[in-house]
């Protein structure tokens, strides 16, 4: 493949594979620093308790122990911050109790950090931790979010009724009025089940401090090193930002769980200065279950009002969202800004009202997990729409079609303006690919074998490419959400790109190189992508919210265009032409209408050996950066169709077919996009059918605390997915026309699965996860 063909739209194989396939990846736990010590966290065994006393004397004297840190060491510094301020409907700001680095007199969830033991070996640290004497006074735990406000126990004194905020969006009165005129109202009450992210690489960090240079280095498995540094330095520890280097090297998956500033790496940084040696910590898997930010956990009531022809008149949604014991970095915006604003879906529902009550409970903090609020919104909407279709005995595709938005841009009643879309295109293509026409025959064949077969739709839309900073700021964000990119052209014409995006599986080292090589008309081998190191990369907000290509990629494109603009001026000088007469195409600068040209590499060399150079107009060198703040979110959308076959005797449910048809706008690397959809589908189907983070309501113990009890999707849980991206509607507001694809699979799939199960069994509802036992029970209950 050569530069003349163009790289956009090519399924270029990944260059990062070489190191991963040969065991040469460098994940945080792979790093060994000279003189390093090992850290181990003592964690609370109780969901809710005061610490009456904490005695580390015996532990401190144990073999190999170098230091022990407790809440005392962090009393004077800030708590872990929440980056999004949500105001309640009564105008009061959300409750923001301090989120201490190490517990400050009280523990609030099983796994809450109590102490950090630093020792020569991990075994010594673990042994010493057992010698720490903690006297706990147990308190009544608040576990069930739906009951949190009624339980006579407060997670935080600042929130006596455990309410963090009570927020709303939309037109309450208009919605109520519309319901009064409805010919039909469908109501559904359900829970969006708590999930544990389970990236395969557990969280890890290795912190060190150099007295000689008075600076810190933190290796951490993280999705956004600059944000990590800013939060830790400016908001918690008061360390000058320019004196810390944060490196997120190879990261083994994130899915949101590695966005946040956690207490672990913060404590490690303080410990590393105290002991004067690196301190390394790697999370155990059972530790990760307790301490990684969990996802989802909404209780919702959805009501849909329709007229006699099946037009949606109004949607009302009431959600209780579990924040967990403390506000994690983005927790507050997940059930509000990233959830309620998607409740129009693909439909022109004129009136919407959504109320969200966020509560504290004595469980692990809950924050963004692949989809972050949009799976919850899509589940709510696509379940109620399909349920309405069944109640009205209308084809679910026809009911949706009737209500599709068809003119763009479209301003929804819940704050977003969709720039473009074609929902009919993905619906009809999905129906074709899913062979819906043959469903009746397949159903009959299943029934002949004593099995039930069902089909379910999900027409999802999501808002990603996060986010326009001024919009985000107006909605309570305490950060900007732009992205940064730098293009360094070397004297020999090779290019290094520094991107604020972070690749932890997304393949940016390949796809971003495609974009740059395509735009500069140079071979892909001449472009290298650097990310993840605050010492190298100018700045970045990081990778999450399916934003890397649309926001990070656009920043790079803008920087590349600055390079081209400067290159044209250099070329004009070399070719003795006017700046305006220079064209750039296929890696070559030429004088329009002539064959006088000079290749990119020559212009690069001239920039760095500026003998024949317009010094009166230009500086030497060829290095440009750009910061790009998007003007809108992007709106990928599509239709997913799921077909299940159920054995009513056992409740065992098999996904027999799954069809995903998406509009992601322009596609840079189809192979990568397909892989992202596959991964998202696995997580979404996993949520629908098997995954569930469960706490015992009496004791607050995490019952699903390891892979023994938390069902992770495996290869034999899935059929072959049929995945297709339609030509679609390119995003109108970024130069690549891309929408982002990383989360769609996890967003669109759960309702398709549950809709299919309900269809198969003639049920109005099926709680997630639809395990064999749950399905069997539902069948019994329905007899």
């Amino acid at each position: 493949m050569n530069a003349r063909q163009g790289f956009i739209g090519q399924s270029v194989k990944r260059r990062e594979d070489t190191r991963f396939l040969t065991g040469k990846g460098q994940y945080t736990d792979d790093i060994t620093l000279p003189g390093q010590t090992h850290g181990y966290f003592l964690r609370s065994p109780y969901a809710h308790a005061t610490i009456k006393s904490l005695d580390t004397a015996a532990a401190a004297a144990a073999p190999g122990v170098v230091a022990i840190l407790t809440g005392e060491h962090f009393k004077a510094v800030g708590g872990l911050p929440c980056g999004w301020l949500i105001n309640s409907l009564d105008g009061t700001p959300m409750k923001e109790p301090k989120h201490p680095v190490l517990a400050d007199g009280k523990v609030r969830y099983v796994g809450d950090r109590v102490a950090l033991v630093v020792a020569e070996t991990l075994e010594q640290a673990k042994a010493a931790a057992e010698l720490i004497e903690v006297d706990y006074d147990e308190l009544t735990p608040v576990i069930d979010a739906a009951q949190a406000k009624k339980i006579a126990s407060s997670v935080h004194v600042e929130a006596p009724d455990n309410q963090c905020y009570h927020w709303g969006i939309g037109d309450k009165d208009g919605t109520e009025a519309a319901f009064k005129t409805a010919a039909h109202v469908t109501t559904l009450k359900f829970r969006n089940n708590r999930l544990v992210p389970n990236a395969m690489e557990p969280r890890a960090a290795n912190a060190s401090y150099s007295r000689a240079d008075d600076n810190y280095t933190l290796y951490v498995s993280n999705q956004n090193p600059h944000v990590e540094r800013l939060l830790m330095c400016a908001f918690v520890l008061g360390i000058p930002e320019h004196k810390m280097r944060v490196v997120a090297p190879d990261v083994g998956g994130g899915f949101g769980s590695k966005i946040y500033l956690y207490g672990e790496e913060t404590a490690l940084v303080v410990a590393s200065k105290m002991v004067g040696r690196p301190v390394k910590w790697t999370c155990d898997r059972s530790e990760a279950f307790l301490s990684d930010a969990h996802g989802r956990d909404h209780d919702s009531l959805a009501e849909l009002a329709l007229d006699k022809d099946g037009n949606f008149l109004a949607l009302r949604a009431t959600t209780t969202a579990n924040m967990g014991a403390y506000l994690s970095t983005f927790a507050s915006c997940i059930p509000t800004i990233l959830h309620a604003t998607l409740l129009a879906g693909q439909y022109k529902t004129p009136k919407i009202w959504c109320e969200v009550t966020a509560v504290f409970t004595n469980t692990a903090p809950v924050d963004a997990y692949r989809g972050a609020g949009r799976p919850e919104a899509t589940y709510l909407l696509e379940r109620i729409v399909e349920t309405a279709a069944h109640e009205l005995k209308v084809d679910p595709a026809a009911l949706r079609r009737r209500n599709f938005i068809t003119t763009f841009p479209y301003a929804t009643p819940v704050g977003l303006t969709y720039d473009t879309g074609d929902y009919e295109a993905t619906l009809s293509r999905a129906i074709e690919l899913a062979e819906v026409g043959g469903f009746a025959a397949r159903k009959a064949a299943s029934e002949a074998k004593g099995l039930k077969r069902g089909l379910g739709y999900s027409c999802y839309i999501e808002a990603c490419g996060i986010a326009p900073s001024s919009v985000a700021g107006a909605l309570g964000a305490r950060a900007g959400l732009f992205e940064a990119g730098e293009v360094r052209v070397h004297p020999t014409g090779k290019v290094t790109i520094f991107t604020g995006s972070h690749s932890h599986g997304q393949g940016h080292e390949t796809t971003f190189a495609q974009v740059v090589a395509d735009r500069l008309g140079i071979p892909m081998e001449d472009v290298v992508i650097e990310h993840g190191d605050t010492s190298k990369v100018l700045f970045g907000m990081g990778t999450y919210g399916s934003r890397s290509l649309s926001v990070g990629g656009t920043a790079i494109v803008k920087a590349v265009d600055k390079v081209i603009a400067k290159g044209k001026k250099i070329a004009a000088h070399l070719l003795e032409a006017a700046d305006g007469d220079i064209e750039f195409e296929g890696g070559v600068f030429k004088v329009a209408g002539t064959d006088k040209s000079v290749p990119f590499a020559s212009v690069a060399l001239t920039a760095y050996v500026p003998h024949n150079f317009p010094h009166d107009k230009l500086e030497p060198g060829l290095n440009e950066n750009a910061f790009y703040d998007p003007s809108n979110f992007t709106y990928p959308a599509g239709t997913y169709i799921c077909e299940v076959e159920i054995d009513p005797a056992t409740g065992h449910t098999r996904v027999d077919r799954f069809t995903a048809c998406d509009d992601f706008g322009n596609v840079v690397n189809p192979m990568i996009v397909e892989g992202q959809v596959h991964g998202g589908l696995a997580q979404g189907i996993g949520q629908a059918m098997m995954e569930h983070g469960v706490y015992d309501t009496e004791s607050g113990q995490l019952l699903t605390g390891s892979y023994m009890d938390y069902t992770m999707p495996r290869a034999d849980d899935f059929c072959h997915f049929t995945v297709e991206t339609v030509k679609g509607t390119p995003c109108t507001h970024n130069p690549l026309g891309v929408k982002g694809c990383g989360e769609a699979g996890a967003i669109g799939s759960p309702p398709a699965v549950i809709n299919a199960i309900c269809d198969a069994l003639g049920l109005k509802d099926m709680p997630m996860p639809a395990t064999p036992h749950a399905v069997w029970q539902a069948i019994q209950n329905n007899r």
Partner: protein
Amino acid sequence: MTTITLKVNGKDLSRDVEPQTLLVQFIRETLQLTGTHVGCDTAQCGACTVHVNGRAVKSCNMLAVQAQGAEVTTIEGLAAADGTLHPMQAAFNECHGLQCGFCTPGMVMSAVDLVTHHKCSNDEQVREGLEGNLCRCTGYQNIVKAVRTGAAAMK
């Protein structure tokens, strides 16, 4: 401390280990071969899969002392000495069978064993054969494709 003597990736070596040291710890920490990964603590994720005497073993589920006298191959020992990828490694690249790469060494080692010792003539057999290896990124579809492609190339 016990001294163990074994062959790792074709090299004979001898090291002192504590009796409770897991094989995966020996590989990662003593030998500094960090390609083999630890993804769980209940021997269920498969990220630690290596070959011991030609068979796939979860190295977190075996003590280093149990590898006395054994031939161990880790992901670092799969490619040829000149760097030419093993057909299974090449197949994973060709089929986009990896994303973050963390499960990949274990997945590839399991795949090589699966294809060498079991019937892999259809997707279902491959899926069942890989049920001891978790992946959170790929959704498994391209892994299945990679394993079948690798199997064909290994014939």
